[in-house]
């Protein structure tokens, strides 16, 4: 399962994606990250709407059967929404990591910050080089 990263968003080396739209940036993790994790069994989002997050700050953890990983915020800003569905249905991450398993939405401090992240093709190359 090496789904091509969608072209509509940006990516980080920590395998998060950031999708700008409507003044917000929605954040989740990539298919590559999901593949590395395996069966996701727990998503803990440790922030709530109103919290300020700095770029690269951990906003929660994701656990699979075997491992635990931190979730990092790709850009700085204020949390506007968190995906409560993941609490009861962590398997959404395995099923639809680019859609239903979005994790948080941020009102960016600097609307241009997201443009500094990797484009989909650069991220695909990054994953290719990371895998070898």
């Amino acid at each position, binding site marked *: 399962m090496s789904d091509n990263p969608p072209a509509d968003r940006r990516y980080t080396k920590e395998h998060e994606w950031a999708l700008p739209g409507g003044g917000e940036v929605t954040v989740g993790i990539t298919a590559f990250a999901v593949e590395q994790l*395996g*069966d996701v*069994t*727990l998503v*803990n989002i440790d922030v709530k709407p109103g919290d300020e997050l700095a770029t690269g700050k951990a906003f929660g953890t994701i*656990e699979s*059967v*075997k491992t*635990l990983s931190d979730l990092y915020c790709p850009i700085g800003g204020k949390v506007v929404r968190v995906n409560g569905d993941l*609490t009861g249905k962590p398997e959404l991450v395995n099923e639809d990591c680019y859609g239903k398993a979005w994790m948080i939405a941020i009102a960016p401090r600097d609307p241009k910050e997201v443009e500094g992240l990797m484009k989909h093709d650069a991220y695909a190359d990054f994953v290719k080089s990371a895998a070898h």
Partner: protein
Amino acid sequence: MTETPLRRTSLHAEHVALGARMVPFAGWEMPVQYTGVVDEHVAVRTAAGIFDVSHMGELRLRGEYAGHVVDYLTTNDAKKLVDGQAMYTCVCNERGTILDDVIVYRHGQEDWLVVCNASNRDKMVAHFGRAAKDHCDFEDQTPCSALVALQGPRALEILAATGGADAAGLASFRFRAATVAGVGCVVSRTGYTGEDGVEIFCAWADAPSLWRGLLAAGRGAGLKPIGLGARDTLRLEARLSLYGNDIDETTDPLEAGLGWVVKLGKGDFIGRDALQKIQSRPLARKLVGFEVTGRGIARHGYPLLDPDGTTIGVCTSGSPGPTVGKNIGLGYVASAMAAVGTRLVVDCRGKSVDAVVVVTPFYKKGASKGAAGANP
């Protein structure tokens, strides 16, 4: 991080062809998963799974005094074994703590096999090699002996379908020579999953034929290849100890709940005096099973606290239990906190998560489900 090249088993190409993700494990490149840990776990509980465990150490001791050497180095009573019988045992040091946990096979009065953990192979080769010196022949057969485990409620049926009908009738912890999928091998009614099944020894070069033959014969029954990931969740549900996690050189068999393989009355053996002393006093701590009732997964090394927040132990193994449907773990706790029903708190990286001591094994193969294959 190490630059030492990883060893490969003779089944390496099979794993790669099956799409396994390969990872370093105890100096070997081993499959951690093929289709996914949960999927593989469920296959073993409901149908059958095949595992490459060729990385495990195989030490052979032969000669008139081979049995004595084995018995002197193990806590369980090797003298009680008959030809074709195996036993689980600890290997302790003089302090009574655990150097390794192994299975001892008596091939003959003068022919013994010890199967040890891959992570402890060098240590066990040195330990048994030293003890064997001047007393019996000793050989590390790991490089020439492959080992494949076939486990699950349909394992024996698959074994019988590949020519191992005689071996399918073996009692627990018995073994015999057999021909399986055209390969000459030794089949042992042992395993590390909590399911019925066997472990099959064969020559290094024959393992691919055995592996392919079993997979082909078992496909209709739901047989799947299983990686180290599911091997770990399966053994944890069955409360089987993992060396390096639950037991090591800082733990003794009694506190680890392995007192049943310590036979203090069997005659002298390494660690006996220390274990006698340990047994004469109440245990300070015990390895218990717990279920995480809060939102969290306990992991190796997480502190265990009492409800007041005082540290009373440490988690040694933890993960979701796919069959029991709960997050489970093992850990050492102060003996006063070891009773079933005792409330614990797991410190999950600074987050307090509730847990409770429960009866183990977490999973016991259902008597009512009737070991499929036992009554064909």
